[in-house]
């Protein structure tokens, strides 16, 4: 597999940005300054980035409640995201959406989504737009193992097949739907589910950027070429709870520590690119330093930013009403 140096650098930067963004949120959330709830994507970075590396701004994605990583992978700026998470006027959604509703339609980011299973039907529609407007775009639904049991998701797998849509269903299987293990909650197998709809199925290791990148590349090329929808099952793990504040009493002691030690996509990426002399350590170190500064600036900017004006309460409910 040949990957351009530029793609490698960009992808590493995106994964590092997600990691630092989320680790910083973990710390900042504990201070009580961030309203609402946040769901962190730490440990899953290679999935969003490995998929979105194949997409352009024309392509559409729909995300989940755990959406920060998908936003960053799709090119959404961290300043606007951080300000949004702090509920500030300068936020991407002017402080009216928050962590679970960050969207940037100009980049084909159709929104994080507070409803489990909310994204797959929307992605059928976005894929229909790509097909009928003939812009060669594809639409990608990220959804979790929890959402894989929602009727809306299963109906979408059927509809996308019936309409032969350029849609990719990326199942990010982190092993838990909130606190309940997917081994308990998911009957049968995801592979058999895809087969039940006559849909091709691929799977990959979500802690390995190269595994995701290669698999997603195949899937997206399949959808883009007009061959219809496809499922990509990404096996991965989350390092934090379902939400910040989740004591994770349902996980065995040491489970997360082991994941951090053995399944860190950033460590693995660094090892792989150095081993095959694709990038230099100095390249990666430079990105690490630059991302650190970027996140620091985003947090400082978000904290200092103004809150929304009271008048904004009533704005944008309707276009002209």
């Amino acid at each position, binding site marked *: 597999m040949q990957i351009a140096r530029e793609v490698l650098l960009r992808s590493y930067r995106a994964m590092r940005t997600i990691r630092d963004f989320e680790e910083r949120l973990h710390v900042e959330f504990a201070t009580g300054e961030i309203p609402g709830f946040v769901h962190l994507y730490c440990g899953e970075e290679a999935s969003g980035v490995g998929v979105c590396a194949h997409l352009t701004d024309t392509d559409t994605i729909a995300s989940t409640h755990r959406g920060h990583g998908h936003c960053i992978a799709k090119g959404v700026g961290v300043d606007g995201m951080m300000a949004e998470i702090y509920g500030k006027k300068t936020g991407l959604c002017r402080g009216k959406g928050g962590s679970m509703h960050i969207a940037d339609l100009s980049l084909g980011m159709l929104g994080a989504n507070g409803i489990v299973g*909310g994204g797959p039907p929307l992605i059928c*529609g*976005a894929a229909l737009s790509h097909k009928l407007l003939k812009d060669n775009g594809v639409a990608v639904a990220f959804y979790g193992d929890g959402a894989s049991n929602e009727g*809306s998701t299963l109906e979408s797998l*059927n509809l996308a097949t019936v309409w032969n849509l350029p849609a990719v269903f990326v199942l990010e299987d982190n092993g838990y739907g909130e606190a309940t293990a997917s081994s308990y909650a998911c009957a049968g197998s995801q592979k058999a589910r895809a087969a039940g709809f006559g849909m091709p199925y691929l799977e990959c290791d979500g802690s390995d950027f190269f595994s995701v990148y290669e698999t997603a590349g195949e899937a997206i090329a399949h959808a883009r070429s007009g061959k219809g929808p496809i499922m990509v099952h990404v096996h991965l793990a989350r390092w934090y709870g379902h939400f910040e504040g989740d004591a994770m009493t349902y996980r065995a002691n040491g489970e997360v520590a082991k994941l951090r030690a053995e399944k860190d996509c950033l460590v693995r990426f660094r090892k792989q690119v150095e081993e095959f002399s694709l990038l230099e350590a100095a390249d990666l170190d430079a990105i690490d330093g630059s991302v650190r500064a970027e996140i620091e600036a985003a947090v400082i900017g978000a904290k200092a930013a103004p809150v929304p004006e009271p008048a904004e309460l009533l704005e944008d409910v*309707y276009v002209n009403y």
Partner: protein
Amino acid sequence: MSRKSFRQAINEALRQEMLRDPRVILMGEDVAGGQGGSSGVSDAWGGVLGVTKGLYTEFGPDRVLDTPISEASYVGAAAGAAATGLRPVAEVMFIDFVGCCLDQIMNQAAKFRYMFGGKARTPLVIRGMYGAGFSAAAQHSQALYPLFTHIPGLKVVIPSSPYEAKGLLIEAIRDDDPVIFLENKVMYDDEEDVPDEPYTIPFGEANLTREGEDVTIVAFGRMVNFANQAADKLAKEGISCTVVDPRTTSPLDSDTILDCVADTGRLVIVDESSPRCNMATDVAALVAEEAFDALKAPIRRVTPPHTPVPFASILEDLYMPNPAKIEAAVRSVMGYKAKQEA
């Protein structure tokens, strides 16, 4: 101008908008009707009541999409398509089926614009049949417009005649917000003169179908016709009524309702939906709060009882508001005045 049924008026609005704008597409269960069937006729039904008949033949499979019986997926797809450049008109055959896809309407389409800070537009129309009177029983007869009216971000339209249906549907398709367009299933064969050319009727502007001095009757959808019948009969007894057709429940033309109540001092509201938290209750609260001093009598609401819609005709007839019940309510508010003066 020509004589058209409610059904034809809706079909014509869809057709003319599809001709005007290639981004307008239709989807729903059997909107063509006949995909994959053994007759080989793709445009077999045009919807269960034939409303979309002929559009598949004219516009083809990319513009008129039959869906699986799978409301969550295709209503969600309509929302997603609307947010990404198309202008879908999705049909939820009987609006009662919204139970299968409410998330896609309530939590997705309705919220995008506000929740995304004003940067999303969702030009989506959801059409569906509503209303009792067909012995269609509890799951195919409900008048669920209050449910949608309750959700900020949705516009809700209830046309009261073929003329209203065409103008309001064209307005709905050109609107950049999600619009719920509810067609009373008993009215599909109602006829009146309807312009042949496209026209729009703005949302939030009530229509006065009768103007009088004694009582204001606010009625919704098919109830406008009942209110007119009642008003005409009462006029012969010397009671003159204003009949207000709000046309849309969201936005609601509060100003016109308040002006009419200020003129007449009496209010009867006729609403086919279940009485708790319905439009009659909403309008009553509006008037109680904003026009208390103008009232000469208590507000009366004519609604069904708070029960599911029954099947047997005798029970369904009892359930439904009708002109006689409206007349009784009007006489009651007029009688209240007499009591005060006595």
